[in-house]
Structures are given as structure tokens and as C-alpha cells.
């Protein structure tokens, strides 16, 4: 070992000893002394900077860090030390101070005091004012005029393909800050699409807003709505456009397509349906539009409309067939392809029920494996933690007791989870005819004591003679879960309440059961999630379960009956669920 190294080592030991003893002043003095001896060692500057931070002398701290920066080479982890210091400064000092610091750094870059690799990292960190790379500076200028668009596009696509996203981001930021846009309309539109592609939605939105008149044409509106959809936040669109009834009428198909998603997001069923109707009139002659519409119908469970759309698509197909002899080879192929798609779509319709059940099972397993993962993680972590303690020699008898307790409690958790799933997975599946009204009444009677304690009254109204074929015990579970949810909702809100069940038969040989309470209802923001497994609004630790399985079980059982459940969003006095179950042939017995 050479002398210098030993000295550096001694300095650093003395400095850290002083530092940890709290004598920062002496540590600083020692550090300055060390720097005098070893002016090229960047570590001493970093430590000096940190010492000054400790006594809130940011002026000197930033000077020390700048010196450190000048002595850095290209190691990214070293740059990170600086980046973190800078963020710290931003939080602790004034904007002016930070700006001053930045301009000092910029000056150092210009005078060549900072290594090129570090200068590049700084430019990516701070943005365009730090860019020194002549190629990029040149490109900045080129983006100002559409005549360079081809070249700009080539450059950007190349950077994207080499994953050089930071540079692309810097150029997008340059476009955002640009003031003179009258020659760069196409270029800016291109950068919107780039931002969108790279999922920099915030930047895309700023560009959309900054381009004058962009929202006066359908492409612009469509782009804005599409970005908002991907962001799951329509506030920018709502601020720039009036998305009312008139807007639907005046829009072209592509905008209407986005409007459907917007109204779905906003839960505005009325305007959503209006948009779909409007789209239907444009679908009369266009197969792709008809197909889009068909997909929407499926998405919103509008099966009658979907069926109609599917018929319409077939008509369009046979119309093309009739004129087939007039077409060339290309059209012929195209028609064949489209026919193929229609056949597939038809298969899809018949497979749909099957698919839904598969999706239900998949979701169930998804939730199940997630929930099972929690106790498994806890058991594994606790054992591994104990092993770690043994290795370090800090394990105690008390630790072992706690470990065993924890493992036992986690296995109990698995057990109770399995018990909750039983209604879905029980293979008893004893199918029988049962009376809908009778079964529901029996569940209420069973829960009567608890309902009375909570001050909850109930009424069951409607058709007393509808029978269903299936597992009656599972059917009961639907109502046990719904009633328990309502009870909890009502008592969290007030000290009495009412639950109402209405049973009726629809024209399509279905039984419709609506279940409503006058509790606080389901908050708007979560109406989509309530049927997901393990979604819960209750505290996980609370005694009332709160594991978020109730409505998921309900949903699954109804699936087994080929039925469905929907939250009635129009109902404002509490929560209301509408269930539909098809009555299988022969299941109706009039008593």
C-alpha cells in the first residue's frame, strides 16, 4: 500500500469519527484539509457537501457538490448521488437559489469543466437548456418546420428503436415549450402520437392543448378523447369541449366511438345509448362500423341489439356475395376474410356463455391465488426472518414462540378462506326445483333475529309461483350475502332501515329479482369494482369479514344459474341490485 492511500484512509476515518461524534465543525475542517492534500478525490467533496447540508449551509454544500461533479467520470451511480442532492436542494432552498445553482452548473459545462458523460446525464436530468450535443441542438431547430418532418421522424423512430427514450422526451419537452408553431403543425401532431405511443400521456395532453385549432377537427378531438381514455381521466377533454347531446349529433363516427367510452366512464347511460343509436344509423351500409357496434353491444351486455347487429352484418355479407361476380380477385379475397370473421363471431355468440363461465372461474382462481399468497408470504418471511436471526445470533425463545403463533394464525387464515369459498366450490350440486319466493323468505326468516336487532324491516313482493331448477342452497347464499352486506351498510349509516325484494317474470322466460336497501348506497367511484374478488370497503381487520368475497360469490352463483347481477345505478335511495335468471324449460310449475 502506498503512502497516499494510507493517508486518505486515515482522513476518512477521522472525518467519520468526528461526524458521528457530532463535531461537524471539526469534521469540515478535517475534510478541507483532506481536499488540500488530495484535490482530485471526488469523495471528499461529496462528504464535505453532506457535512454542510447537515448544518444547513446550502451555499457551501452546493459548491462542494459542484466540485464533486467536476471530478466525476461516467459512473451512473455516482451521478445519482448528485441527483439526490439536487432534489434535496430543490425541497430545502428557494427557487432562486436552485436556478442560480443550475446556471453555475451550465457555465461549468460550457467551460468544459465537466466530463462529457456527466454533462450528458445532466442534460437529460435538467432538460433542454443543458443540451450541448450539437446533433440534438440541430434537431431542435428542425422540429420548428414541417419541411424537416421526414428527417425528424427518422431520427425519433431510430431513438425509439434503440430505447433512447430520454432524448425523445427532451425533444418532446422542447416542442411543448415552443412558442412559434405556425410552421410545425404536422410535426407537433407527430409528436403527440409519439408521446401517446410512449405512454407519456401528460405530455401528449399539453401538446394537444398548445396546438391552436387542433380541437376544431375530428382527428384532434378523437386524439384528445383517446388519450383521456388511456389516462382514465377526462378532465382536460371536459375543460376544452362541451360533450353534450348536440356534440353527439355533430360528430363523425370515429369521435362517437370515443364518446361511447367517455359516457361509459361518466356512467351516463342516457347519452351512451343515444351515441350508440346514432352510430347505428351510420352502420347501415358499412361492415366495419357494424362490427364495432356489435362489439359495443356485447361490451354493455345489450344482447338483443347484438343479435340484431349480427343479423345485419350477415345481410351486409350476403349483399356483398350477390355482387361478387362484379368484383376483382382482391375484393373476393377480402369478402372471404370478412365472412370468416362473421363465422367466427357467430361461434363466439354461442361460445359466449361458456366463455363467461370460464372467465368467472379464472377470476375466482386469480383472487384465490392472490389471497392464498398473503399467508404463504407471511409464513415464509417469518421462517426466513428467524433463520436470519439465528445466523446473526440474535434469536430468542420468545422469537420462536412468536414464530409458531404466527404460522398457526396464518394457517387458520387459509382455513377460514377455504370455508368462505365453499358455497362456490361445493360439489354437492344437488339440483332440484325450488320456489324462488319461498327460498328467499326462508333466508330472511333465518336472519330475522339479527335483522330485528339492527332495526331492519324487510318486504318480499311479487310473483310467488316462479320455480327454478338448480342448487337451492347455493341460491340461498346469494341472499345471505346480499342481506349481510345491506345490514352492515345500513347500521354504519343509521339505526334502522328497510330491505325490499321484488320478484317478477319477464317476457323472455326469465325471473327478475331486484334487491334494494335504503342504506348509504355504493359510492360512485367504486361501482365497477364491487363484483371483483377481494374488493372490500370494510377494514380488513374488522370482524365482519371484509375480505371482499360477498358480491363476488353472489356473482359466481348467478353465473352458475346462467344469470346475471347488475348494480342499478339510477337508484339513489340506497343500493339496488337487479338479478336476471333464465327459467329453464320445464322449470315453471304453476301451483
Amino acid at each position, binding site marked *: 500500500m502506498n503512502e497516499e492511500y494510507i493517508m486518505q484512509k486515515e482522513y476518512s476515518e477521522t472525518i467519520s469519527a468526528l461526524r458521528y461524534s457530532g463535531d461537524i465543525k471539526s469534521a469540515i475542517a478535517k475534510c478541507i484539509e483532506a481536499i488540500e492534500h488530495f484535490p482530485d478525490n471526488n469523495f471528499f467533496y461529496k462528504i464535505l457537501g453532506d457535512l454542510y447540508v447537515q448544518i444547513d449551509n446550502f451555499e457551501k454544500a452546493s459548491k462542494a457538490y459542484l466540485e464533486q461533479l467536476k471530478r466525476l467520470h461516467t459512473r451512473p451511480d455516482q451521478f445519482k448521488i448528485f441527483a439526490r442532492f439536487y*432534489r434535496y436542494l430543490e425541497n430545502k432552498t428557494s427557487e432562486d437559489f436552485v436556478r442560480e445553482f443550475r446556471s453555475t452548473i451550465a457555465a461549468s459545462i460550457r467551460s468544459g469543466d465537466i466530463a462529457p458523460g456527466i454533462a450528458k446525464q445532466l442534460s437529460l436530468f435538467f432538460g433542454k437548456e443543458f443540451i450541448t450535443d450539437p446533433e440534438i441542438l440541430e434537431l431542435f431547430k428542425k422540429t420548428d418546420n414541417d419541411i424537416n418532418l421526414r428527417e425528424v421522424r427518422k431520427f425519433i423512430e431510430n431513438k425509439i428503436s434503440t430505447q433512447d427514450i430520454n432524448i425523445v422526451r427532451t425533444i418532446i419537452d422542447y416542442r411543448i415549450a415552443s412558442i412559434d408553431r405556425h410552421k410545425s403543425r404536422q410535426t407537433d401532431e407527430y409528436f403527440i402520437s409519439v408521446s401517446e405511443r410512449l405512454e407519456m400521456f401528460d405530455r401528449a395532453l399539453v401538446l394537444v392543448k398548445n396546438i391552436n385549432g387542433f380541437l376544431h377537427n375530428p382527428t384532434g378531438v378523437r386524439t384528445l378523447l383517446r388519450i383521456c381514455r388511456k389516462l382514465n381521466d377526462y378532465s382536460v377533454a371536459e375543460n376544452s369541449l362541451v360533450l353534450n347531446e348536440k356534440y353527439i349529433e355533430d360528430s363523425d363516427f370515429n369521435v362517437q366511438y370515443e364518446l361511447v367510452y367517455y359516457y361509459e366512464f361518466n356512467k351516463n347511460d342516457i347519452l351512451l345509448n343515444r351515441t350508440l343509436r346514432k352510430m347505428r344509423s351510420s352502420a347501415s351500409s358499412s361492415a366495419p362500423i357494424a362490427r364495432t357496434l356489435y362489439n359495443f353491444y356485447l361490451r354493455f351486455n345489450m344482447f338483443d341489439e347484438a343479435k340484431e347487429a349480427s343479423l345485419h352484418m350477415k345481410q351486409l355479407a350476403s349483399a356483398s356475395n350477390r355482387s361478387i361476380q362484379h368484383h376483382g380477385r382482391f375484393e373476393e379475397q377480402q369478402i372471404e376474410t370478412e365472412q370468416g370473421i362473421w363465422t367466427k363471431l357467430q361461434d363466439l355468440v354461442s361460445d359466449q356463455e361458456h366463455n363467461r363461465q370460464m372467465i368467472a372461474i379464472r377470476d375466482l382462481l386469480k383472487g384465490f391465488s392472490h389471497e392464498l399468497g398473503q399467508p404463504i408470504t*407471511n409464513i415464509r*418471511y417469518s421462517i426466513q426472518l428467524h433463520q436470519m436471526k439465528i445466523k446473526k445470533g*440474535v434469536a430468542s425463545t420468545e422469537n420462536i414462540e412468536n414464530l409458531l403463533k*404466527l404460522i398457526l394464525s396464518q394457517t387458520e387464515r387459509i382455513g377460514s378462506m377455504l370455508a368462505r369459498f365453499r358455497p362456490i366450490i361445493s360439489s354437492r350440486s344437488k339440483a332440484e326445483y325450488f320456489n324462488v319466493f319461498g327460498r328467499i323468505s326462508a333466508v330472511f326468516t333465518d336472519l330475522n333475529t339479527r335483522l330485528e336487532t339492527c332495526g331492519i324491516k324487510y318486504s318480499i313482493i311479487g310473483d310467488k309461483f316462479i320455480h327454478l331448477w338448480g342448487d337451492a342452497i347455493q341460491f340461498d347464499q346469494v341472499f345471505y350475502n346480499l342481506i349481510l352486506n345491506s345490514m352492515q351498510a345500513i347500521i354504519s349509516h343509521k339505526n334502522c332501515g328497510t330491505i325490499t325484494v321484488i320478484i317478477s317474470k319477464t317476457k323472455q322466460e326469465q325471473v327478475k329479482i331486484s334487491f334494494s336497501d335504503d342504506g348509504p348506497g355504493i359510492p360512485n367511484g367504486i361501482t365497477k369494482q364491487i363484483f371483483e374478488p377481494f374488493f372490500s370497503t370494510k377494514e380488513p381487520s374488522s370482524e365482519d369479514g371484509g375480505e371482499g368475497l360477498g358480491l363476488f360469490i353472489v356473482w359466481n352463483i348467478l353465473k352458475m344459474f346462467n344469470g346475471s347481477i347488475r348494480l342499478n345505478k339510477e337508484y339513489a335511495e340506497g343500493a339496488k341490485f337487479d338479478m336476471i335468471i333464465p327459467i329453464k324449460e320445464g322449470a315453471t310449475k304453476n301451483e
Partner: protein
Amino acid sequence: MNKVLIIEDEVTTAAQVHEALAINSVEADIAKDGAEGIKMFNEREYDLVLLDLKMPGMDGEQVLTEIRKVDPFVDVIVYTNYSEFADIKKLTNIGIQGYINKGPKADLSELLETILEKLAPLTEEGVNKLIKHTPEELFDE
């Protein structure tokens, strides 16, 4: 000096990670959901964030996006037992430095190693150690 923020809704898991970090001399705070995590992250400086992806309310991805708005440099390690549904590509775009599996493959030592490795180049102790023990060439750099 080093401080880790654990954002995890599962209390038991969080406590175990916290203890494992403690016996390795790393300080940590626990946030029990995303909103609390963001609040704590904004209130003080953390060197690393350990983020559970599947949480009630704000999920891990949303939390990550919020954190990245404030600090593009802090190390974030995500962990979940829901791996097949995590959009790792998307998360990588927002910016994560590590991904760890929980559930049947949960390995506390692996988690700890990953965390310590990320913290290592920046620990006060680490820097001092580096000065003390690095080969001389490094100073000649």
C-alpha cells in the same frame, strides 16, 4: 442515514420486512396504503421504496406514477404475489429498479439482498468503507 419506505397493506408482511431491515441496520417506515405512502414520501426523503402492487384503493402502479412525478431517481422495488397480472413492461416504463415475487416463492433474503444492493453505493457507511477499502486504482481514476 438510509431510509426505506415500505408501502404494503398486509400488516404482518410489512412488519417482517421492517424487522429484517432493522437487523441489517436499515431504518424503515411503513405506510399501510398507497395514499399514506405518497403522503409520507412527500414529507421526507427516502432512499428506496418497497411497493406492493396489489392494494385496496390506490394500487401500486398509481402510487409509482405519483412518486415518479416527484422524484424520478429514487429506487423503487415492486413486489407482489400477483405476478402474472402485473404489467411489468408498463411499470418499467414508469420506472422501477427491481421486481420481487411474493407468494409461494417469497424469499426474504432475496428481497433484503436486492434492497441492500440498491442502497449500497449510497450509504454513508458504504462511501466511507469504499474510501477505506477500495483498491488504490480507484483514486487514480
